[in-house]
């Protein structure tokens, strides 16, 4: 197992754990460092606040699913002691070879039993409680009826009457959507109402007239999405009501729109799985989605087998944020034995249960460049096809090869080999920083014949399709513009 400091950083649940773990190493609290003969287990003794030393360990018997254990009372995994153990290893500290401790051998055996049991269960046909499912679908249909009533009332009254107070009242009513197993629909409604007040509750909650004018187009677009959600959702749920054995739909992402939380097992059963995939992260960003009341970390990855740009999303609700591992930028190639792909369009969401990192090599950059789309016209056509779908992602990503970056008037453009152009612009999406000014600060060499990951956005006010640069890939480097 190759462990470097970047790998240990990536295993930490949050930034504080990294800091504390490095502190443990610096303070020389690790008073015993050991490794098993086959190198699959690192373990040690660590001074803590108690009379007895803690016994942290990092078990790589399955390198794709490392197991971290410690006798400390921390609820975080890996805890700072296990992380410190790995930092010490990455920094070249001397680990003495020793027998695997008996307690860890026992735990390893139990893990093996669990894995086998899980495999057995996975092989068994999954039984569905049809009566409970029908009851749930019925509740969802009632929820959709409520949503439809809410949006029709809004449209009848006119968006002009919607203000901070009434938007919050609508949200109160929309709480019933959550009870009706429609959290996705509830979030979509919050995306509409959230346009009409500020993120921080203050005396200046209300938008100014000029600000209101700017949100009407977005609000109407969101209403259209909700309207389509009601229609398509009702059709989908009625189909499932008629045939309770029917699996969630995988052709479109309507199930996710309604709030279906896909289990990896479901995705595998539906065949939405790819084996032995290598993924290279092209961009990473994190933002606070206050309408969802969640922190969202998004990774944009290039599937090095298919060349598809796929997304990882880590949602951390405010109330549980501390207990959920915060995602970070990844500077390795991630090897996934099984990559589960959510239903979706251009950039489907992906997840993996287990992964093994390996360092990025120049050959990976070459592979990535080989996957960059050379025909900008075709890319734009695909993007527009997605945008015209009311429930399509409004910010599709594409990895494109360009002949040159240049300027036409005040616009910065990207031009492909055939001379097709795409205007680049910042979009202020999710409060992200501007990336366009960074292009001029890069070496001149990257302005020609490289590849760029861009995120599209259609401006409803100006009817212009623009793209924001997220990262650049050259033969030797990956330049990230967001964080």
């Amino acid at each position, binding site marked *: 197992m190759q462990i470097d400091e970047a790998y240990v*950083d990536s295993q930490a649940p*949050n*930034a504080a754990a990294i800091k504390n773990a490095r502190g443990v190493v610096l*303070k*020389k*609290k*690790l008073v*015993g460092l*050991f490794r098993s003969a086959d190198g699959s287990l690192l373990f040690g003794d660590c*001074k803590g*606040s*108690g*009379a007895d030393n803690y016994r942290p360990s990092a078990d790589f018997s399955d390198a794709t699913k490392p197991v971290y254990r410690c006798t400390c009372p921390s609820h975080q995994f890996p805890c700072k002691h296990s992380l410190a153990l790995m930092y010490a290893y990455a920094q070249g*500290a*001397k680990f003495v070879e020793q027998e695997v401790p008996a307690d860890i051998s026992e735990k390893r055996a139990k893990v093996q039993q669990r894995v086998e049991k899980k495999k057995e269960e996975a092989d068994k046909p999954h039984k569905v409680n049809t009566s409970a499912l029908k009851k749930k679908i019925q509740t969802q249909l009632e929820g959709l009826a409520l949503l439809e009533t809410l949006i*029709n*009332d809004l*449209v009848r*009254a006119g*968006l*002009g*009457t919607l203000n901070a107070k009434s938007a919050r009242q609508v949200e109160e009513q929309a709480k019933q959507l959550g009870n009706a197993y429609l959290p996705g629909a509830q979030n979509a409604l919050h995306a509409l109402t959230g346009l009409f007040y500020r993120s921080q509750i203050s005396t200046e909650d209300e938008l100014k007239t000029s600000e209101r004018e700017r949100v*009407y187009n977005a609000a*109407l*677009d969101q209403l*259209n999405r909700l309207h389509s959600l009601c229609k398509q959702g009702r059709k989908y749920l009625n189909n499932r009501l008629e045939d309770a054995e029917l699996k969630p739909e995988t052709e479109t992402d309507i199930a996710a729109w309604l709030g279906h939380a896909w289990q990896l097992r479901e995705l595998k059963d539906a065949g939405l799985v790819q084996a032995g995939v290598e993924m290279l992260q092209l961009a990473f960003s*994190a933002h606070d989605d206050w309408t969802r009341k969640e922190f969202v*970390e998004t990774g944009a990855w290039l599937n090095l087998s298919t060349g598809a740009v796929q997304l990882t999303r880590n949602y951390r609700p405010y109330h549980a944020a501390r207990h959920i591992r915060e995602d*970070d*930028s990844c*500077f390795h190639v991630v090897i996934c034995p099984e990559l589960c792909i959510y239903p979706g369009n251009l950039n489907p969401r992906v997840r993996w249960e287990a992964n093994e990192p390996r360092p990025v090599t120049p050959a990976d950059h070459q592979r990535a460049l080989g996957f960059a789309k050379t025909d900008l016209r075709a890319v734009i056509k695909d993007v*527009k*096809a997605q945008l*015209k779908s*009311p429930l399509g992602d409004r910010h599709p990503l594409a990895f494109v090869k360009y002949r*040159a*970056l*240049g*300027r*036409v*008037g005040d616009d910065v453009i990207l031009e492909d080999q055939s001379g097709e*152009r*795409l*205007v680049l612009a910042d979009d202020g999406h999710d409060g992200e920083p*501007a990336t366009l*000014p960074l292009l001029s*600060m*890069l070496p001149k060499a990257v302005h020609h014949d490289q590849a760029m990951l861009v995120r599209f956005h*259609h*401006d*409803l006010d100006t*009817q212009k*399709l*623009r*793209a924001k640069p997220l990262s650049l890939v050259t033969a030797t480097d990956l*330049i*990230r*513009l*967001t*964080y």
Partner: protein
Amino acid sequence: MSLALIEESAKEVRRLAIAGSPLAVGDFRLKKFIAPLAAAGEKVPVFAQVAKSIGEVVNGQEADSAANLLNLSTLLNAILYTQGQSGAPGDVRELETFPTTCTSTRTPARVLKPLVEALTSTGGGRFEVIKSACERGAFNDLRLIDPAIRALGDNYPELADLVAEKILPAYGPGILLRIKATFDLKGKREHARRLQLMHQLDPAGTLELCKTALENGSPEVKAAAIACLGQHEDCLPLVLEQAKAKNKTLRAAALEALAVHDRPEVTKLFTELIQGNTLDILAGPFRSLRNQPVLNALLEEGKRVFGLVIAGDSEQLSRCWEIFDCLAYRKDPEVEEFLLHCLSKSEALSKVKIGKNLMVTAARSSIVAGEDLTERLVVMLYQIGTPKALEAILAKRESLPTGAFPQVWRSALRTWPPAKVFDEFSPLVGQKKGPGRQKFDELNRFMAATQWEQGWRFAPAVAADLQAQHRDEVQLMKQAAWDGRWLDAAIKAGESVMVYSLARPDHPAALKYLLGQSAADKPLEPHLIISALLRCRYPQVTDVLLKLIAKKTGAAKYFDYELQLLLGHVQHLPAADLPKLDAFAAKLDEKFVDKYLEALAPLRVTTPTN
């Protein structure tokens, strides 16, 4: 043509969605699009769909108006989404390049985010985050340039200055355009920093901007422009003009900029100003002034004013203080000569009182008595530091005010042998009140500082802001040698801090005194006791320290400064005592264990696995 119809229809739908969908029923503006769209629909079916959908809205029931309007809006938006303009016609030119010295973007988001937050938000604790990031080179990331530029306007000026002086210049001239993009001539301090930074990055290229800023800028930006233009010989006439500006800040900036230039017009200007009533703004410029005629003129004026003060003219006290201000930190022989002359009259000077009328009318800051001037004089001579100056101070030691004692004491240490120092100052030991006690406190603090590694804490206030002087003080402390009789005198007088400072090996009385102090219920300055015992090479020092730590942590709620100082001595204990020290960790309250173990770390000379 047909697409225009779609766009117009979308505008009407937007209007109706804002006003309320019932108004869409029978809406004539929307209705008028039906016919042309239907006609267009014969060629392109989607237009016919739109025409049909509009028909359903305008001819439908009010009850269905919302759903109908949303159906129409969804259809229109779907069409418009396929029509987004993505290109830009026209000639393409090269994208301008302003490469910075850094192109790395390998900083993980987890490291980047707290830094960006510290640079762009408000609140305490941010300065340390940025400073430590700066020291460990974490700013070597392209994505931090814009947040750092934003921080030039931070409410906390130290933070903004750190960014302007240390962080942004390291990116090189490539960032100039980014700084300029949001530069506001009428802005305040933030934009003054921007201008100075731009000038620092590209002096020639920013010259015109500086001239414009001088013409049209806000006072802050103008002052920055003056400082920049002052670095260009050919721009000095512009700066000279500003030396007569009405605004005092601009005048001061101009004089500061001109002071480094040795030119006739500068000489004339300064000579005139010396005769005027605005000497206070000359103090800064005089520190960098190298013009001999100007200095001579100031000394002449100084002699004249000092003569008047000695003659009893209390109204000249403030002016005399301002002249001293201008001469501060200068070490020219003429200045030393002038100051020595003044010191020779110190008895007369100290007797000059503040005039009664001045006490009522003058601003508080300008109330200066003869005694204050004497003290200032001694400080300045001590800073000059020549044997002649120190001897002069010592010669006047009996008549100088108590406030001048720190310089008298240091002059003695630098000049006299230890025995003479003891003979002269030992009567102060044991003084309980009045000037005698004040003087004793000063020498006691000094002795303690010589034994304390972090001597800066007791560094005298003679010129705390002058680093060179500070280094001299540290040097003086390191070299100080004490007559053996000081320790006996301190034990006899019960001056514990002095005993802690001077205790030495093979002095049984001192050891007895130290152990007695450590056994007290609330020992005074316990860390100094340990420091003294370590110096005395007392074999059971570990036991004493552990007792003191146990005493200190017994009822303590927090990890305080005194405990930190105590733990600071752990690293100097014998390594052989490590098992004893380790065993003690188990008895400690949990909240102190981490810090205790940290303190123990340097003692662990072997690696954990060995």
